[in-house]
């Protein structure tokens, strides 16, 4: 196996074309354990961390650009990003220990395509888009459309994610990600729920995105929960509808971390709690608590 470290996107796409058996990597926090577990070695490993667009976080005016190979520690350490999207940054910050945070990336979390990947429901809730480079040029795809099943994505041979686009949040917007794990640190989600809420001036929900993870082959949105929220206040009736919709949207597995019935119930509970947390942040953002960007 050969280690290759291209410095530009073009160099990377050329190397990937020359080495059809190559795999890209960023933090290797999934790749190395998988090799240790006996997965066959690729012909070459292409390190994305020397490509500047893939490892930078910048405010591009209308949106944030987040390099797909940026270590999650850089995201949790970015005060402006964390103030505008606390739920997204908290989700990224849940991945592993401090040791893992210095290596793990959003691109790896998404493209490893574990149904339980923590950052994915939060990325979906925030409408993030992946900028993909490949032999045919560049294309932009919604994050929710990238995973197609456990361990598989819609990326074509020679393609990789360079960065993510994240539009600035409208006023009175808040996001949240909650997960359940058996320990308080270092475990795989039994259920995860990512929510983003925008409130109108009357305090009703103007728009909502609800995404759940670890309860189906891929993270998925829950349209019925979103419909139950839009136009309504956050109250017991809407929250009960959210919980019911999230439980109904599950198609979970039974394993040592949780039975099907347990996962279904917890998905409802976490979706409801994440809606409450996101709505509280949305309400507080009128005071500038989470929308203090100058760009709007």
């Amino acid at each position, binding site marked *: *196996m*050969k*280690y290759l*470290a291209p410095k530009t996107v073009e160099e990377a796409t050329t190397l990937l074309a020359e080495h059809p058996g190559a795999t890209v990597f960023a*933090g*290797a*926090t999934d790749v*190395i*354990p998988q*090799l*240790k*577990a006996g997965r066959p*070695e690729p012909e070459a*490993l292409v*390190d994305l*961390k020397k490509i500047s667009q893939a490892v930078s976080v910048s405010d591009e005016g209308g949106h944030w650009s987040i390099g797909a190979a940026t*270590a999650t*520690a850089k995201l949790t350490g970015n005060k402006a990003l964390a103030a505008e999207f606390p739920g997204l940054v908290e989700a990224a910050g849940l991945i*592993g*220990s*401090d*040791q*893992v945070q*210095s*290596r793990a990336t959003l691109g790896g979390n998404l493209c490893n395509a574990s149904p339980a990947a923590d950052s994915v429901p939060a990325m979906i809730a925030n409408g993030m888009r992946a900028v993909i480079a490949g032999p045919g040029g560049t294309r932009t795809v919604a994050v929710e459309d990238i995973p197609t099943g456990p361990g598989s994505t819609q990326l074509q041979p020679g393609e990789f994610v360079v960065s993510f686009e994240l539009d600035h949040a409208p006023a009175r917007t808040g996001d949240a990600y909650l997960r359940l794990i058996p320990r*308080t*640190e*270092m475990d795989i989600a039994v259920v995860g729920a990512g929510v983003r809420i925008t409130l109108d001036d009357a305090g009703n929900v103007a728009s909502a995105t609800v995404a759940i993870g670890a309860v189906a082959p891929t993270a998925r949105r829950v349209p019925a929960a979103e419909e139950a929220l839009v136009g309504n206040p956050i109250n017991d009736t809407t929250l009960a509808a959210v919980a019911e919709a999230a439980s109904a949207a599950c198609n979970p597995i039974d394993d040592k971390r949780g039975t099907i019935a347990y996962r279904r119930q917890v998905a409802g509970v976490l979706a409801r709690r994440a809606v409450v947390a996101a709505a509280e942040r949305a309400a507080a953002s009128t005071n500038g608590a989470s929308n203090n960007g100058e760009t709007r």
Partner: protein
Amino acid sequence: MSRTHVTCTINGDEVEFLCEDDTTLLNALRDEVGLTGSKEGCGTGDCGACSVIMDGALTCACLVFAPEAEGATVVTVEGIADGNKLHPLQQTFLEGAALQCGVCTPGFLVAAKALLDENPHPTETEVRYALAGNLCRCTGYDKIIRAVLAAADYNGSEG
């Protein structure tokens, strides 16, 4: 296949080594550089026994490919003492008997050093979260946490 030549700075010294591209930094440190302080507990990022500080960031050497270290600055447990003077953490680990078999100790020392470098006076909760990536099968953790808190006090008196 020809081996890759890597030049990096380890514990302040410029070091060169040759490695296979699929070798981890942990194996290169132990087998090529001869620094066997970093331990392999799991090889998959779970136990922290291989913790090193690479370009200022705490990381598991078992999750890094050795060629990635080209041009990097790496601190291992061998590099945390000041000559013959132990690092305050090494001192308080000894005084507080914060180890039994000792396999986890290098990793705890490096992770705790990374914490105290960032946050010289952490709370107990902060210490526990910061060391969540380090496993110990012997001590039950309490003595380790006490030793780190004691070293933080030491930090204060040293200014």
